[in-house]
């Protein structure tokens, strides 16, 4: 079965100087999907917030941040993880639950304003917290004209 998305994974040292490189990389991938200028800017902030959390809180010493981007037609799914190594995208995706406001701030270790912004700027934010680290999972849809959505629905008949 053919996947209906392209998956791109990037791994960076968890250092502040790479935060801008990461948000620009994600924004150039997202710009191919038809996001508006404002949506791209929202994505850049949300990505930076998630990566900054890893940079500031995940490691006592050197570590890595893994950024996974699943590019669908009309939406992007992002995973930002403080695993030290790559992960199975589909497997991790299946382990994330709904995002609960009270518990997730603790999970993110000082999410605060950053977590709040991620939630405000993305369509969906989920957290996975397990023995190997924290993964943030975020989705943003391209805003479509109503006509397009209607047309898609008809073809599923």
């Amino acid at each position, binding site marked *: 079965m053919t996947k209906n998305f392209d998956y791109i994974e990037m791994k960076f040292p968890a250092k*502040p100087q790479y935060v801008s490189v990461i948000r620009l990389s994600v924004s150039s991938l997202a710009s191919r999907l038809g996001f508006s200028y404002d949506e791209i*800017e929202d994505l*850049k902030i949300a990505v930076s917030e998630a990566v900054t959390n890893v940079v500031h809180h995940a490691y006592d010493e050197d570590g890595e941040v893994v950024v996974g981007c699943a590019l669908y037609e009309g939406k992007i799914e992002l995973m930002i993880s403080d695993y030290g190594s790559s992960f199975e995208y589909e497997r991790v995706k299946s382990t994330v639950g709904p995002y609960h406001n009270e518990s997730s701030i603790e999970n993110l270790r000082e999410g605060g*304003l*950053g977590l709040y*912004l991620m939630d405000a700027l993305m369509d969906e934010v989920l957290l996975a917290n397990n023995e190997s680290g924290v993964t943030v999972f975020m989705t943003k849809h391209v805003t479509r004209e109503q006509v397009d959505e209607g047309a898609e629905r008809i073809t599923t008949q």
Partner: protein
Amino acid sequence: MEITINFKEEKEILHVLVKGEIDAYTAPKLRDKLDAIEIEEKANIAIDLSEVTYIDSTGLGVFVAFYKRATRETAHVRLVGLSERIKRLFEITGLSDLMDIDTDKKVELS
């Protein structure tokens, strides 16, 4: 991805011109520059963000900290020249209700 911070005193107002992107990498430099300001009682300080092209919660946190310190010294801080995008961030986070922010410092180009 650099940031520059310049100061200019004019008509009893200390203008702080911030230029560039404010994120986890550049925020410490901004924080150091703002920390170094000796705030006098009842001083007027205007932080001009019209040439800031990017800001996230790291940057917002720096301004919140400076704002708190200035308020303790009974100084008045205004954030001016906010683009519509940056203004929106202050509104989303609720900071626009707590801080004196303004968009009218410079004429918007678009």
